[in-house]
């Protein structure tokens, strides 16, 4: 009881004492969040005191105006400096990207093959995935009939769950051809999602929250589905089995079917991208709340800090669930599209 009275008295004193708000710098939450979610030419880890700790990454450029091939570390472009006519544009059409400034001051974009933060994160995540899977595969090669435990056992449950309940169940006969691609897609998306949630290096780069990565995944599904389409599938797109008036003067149904060929992978891309980006943006916003309420005095700041940490923990756990679910849904829908593309002609049975 005595303890509680002391705590309440301290809180009241803090509210009274913190009533003249401190002068603090303006916290631009939108800029902070976008800089954490987006791509950049260096991997910024933290700010210790007044110095930024960042890993500079190689910048690889081929100039379109005859400057040739350049490769240098991105630390040469820190703080808006210009190096060999290249600089990072601060605003305008090419804001935050490297532009080439010619003699007249006009900006143009060279061919950019730099190893950016997201590209390095993709390489790291792929290495992790390959190491895990190769270790598991080699374990099974050495002792094919033993019962696994530990990491190998856990990976067996994981892989066989997707293999049996998604791939074999949905595709049915002939699923062996598509199991490698679908399992790779599932584990690639899952590992990238999970590494995006971990806040410290080498995690913390949201690769699947970058629409370029998800568009490539959707394109892979599009190619696999299109290549595995039977003749019946493609004929059904151009001349579907529907009443004649839906086809002849205006081909309503063929246009809808062709639109559907592109809209299904597009939906796959947007679903994964938006889920991951929105999740990361929410966690970052909740964390920024602490810094936004700094100017309002220590009592409100403490309350908001406790609330923000609790919400951020909850959102991170939800993000973990969403990481698994989005990978599962991507794989499931890819399997469904492949099954639809492989269907054979159904013989019409005459009923008298």
């Amino acid at each position, binding site marked *: 009881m005595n303890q509680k009275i002391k705590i309440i008295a301290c809180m009241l004193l803090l509210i009274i004492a913190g009533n003249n708000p401190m002068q603090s710098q303006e916290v631009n939450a939108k800029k902070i969040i976008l800089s954490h979610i987006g791509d950049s030419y260096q991997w910024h880890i933290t700010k210790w005191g007044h110095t930024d700790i960042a890993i500079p990454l190689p910048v690889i450029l081929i100039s379109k105006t005859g400057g040739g091939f350049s490769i240098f570390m991105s630390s040469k472009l820190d703080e808006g400096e210009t190096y060999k006519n290249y600089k990072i544009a601060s605003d305008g059409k090419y804001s935050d990207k490297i532009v080439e400034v010619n003699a007249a001051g006009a900006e143009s974009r060279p061919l950019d093959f730099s190893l950016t933060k997201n590209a390095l994160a993709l390489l790291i995540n792929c290495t992790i995935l390959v190491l895990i899977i190769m270790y598991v595969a080699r374990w099974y090669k050495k002792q094919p009939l033993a019962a696994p435990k530990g990491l190998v056992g856990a990976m067996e449950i994981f892989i066989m769950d997707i293999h049996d309940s998604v791939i074999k169940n949905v595709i049915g006969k002939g699923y062996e051809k598509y199991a490698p691609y679908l399992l790779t897609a599932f584990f690639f998306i899952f590992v990238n999602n999970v590494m995006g949630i971990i806040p410290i290096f080498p995690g913390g780069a949201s690769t699947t929250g970058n629409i370029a990565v998800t568009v490539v995944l959707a394109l892979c599904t599009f190619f696999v589905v299109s290549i595995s389409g039977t003749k019946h599938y493609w004929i059904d797109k151009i001349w579907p089995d529907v009443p004649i008036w839906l086809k002849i003067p205006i081909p309503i149904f063929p246009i809808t079917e062709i639109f559907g060929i592109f809209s299904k992978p597009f939906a796959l891309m*947007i679903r994964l991208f938006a889920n991951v980006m929105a999740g990361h943006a929410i966690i970052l916003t909740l964390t920024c709340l602490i810094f936004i309420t700094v100017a309002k005095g220590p009592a409100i700041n403490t309350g908001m800090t406790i609330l923000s940490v609790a919400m951020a923990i909850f959102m991170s756990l939800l993000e973990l669930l969403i990481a698994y679910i*989005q990978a599962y849904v991507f794989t499931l829908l890819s399997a469904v599209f492949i099954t639809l593309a492989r269907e054979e002609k159904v013989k019409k049975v005459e009923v008298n």
Partner: protein
Amino acid sequence: MFLFTYLADATSNMDLGALGKAIGSGLAAIGAGLAAIGAGLGIGNIGSSALEAMARQPAEAKEIQMNMIIVAALVEGTALFAIVICFLVL
């Protein structure tokens, strides 16, 4: 009333471009809210039918739960289309 005077005060020194951008940002926020309503309604429907089915046949609860999560992810994908558009405007 106070809302109008506050808004008039805030926008009185903006030129037309900044004013357009401000209106766009406000409408983007309303759009995001509508998307949240859509997602909430959809997933609420899914959850309610799934729970009712699990109550009717408790033996099938695991199957029903897995399917509920898959359909919830699809509905959420649709709501997030709208969120992406709002982010582009914001």
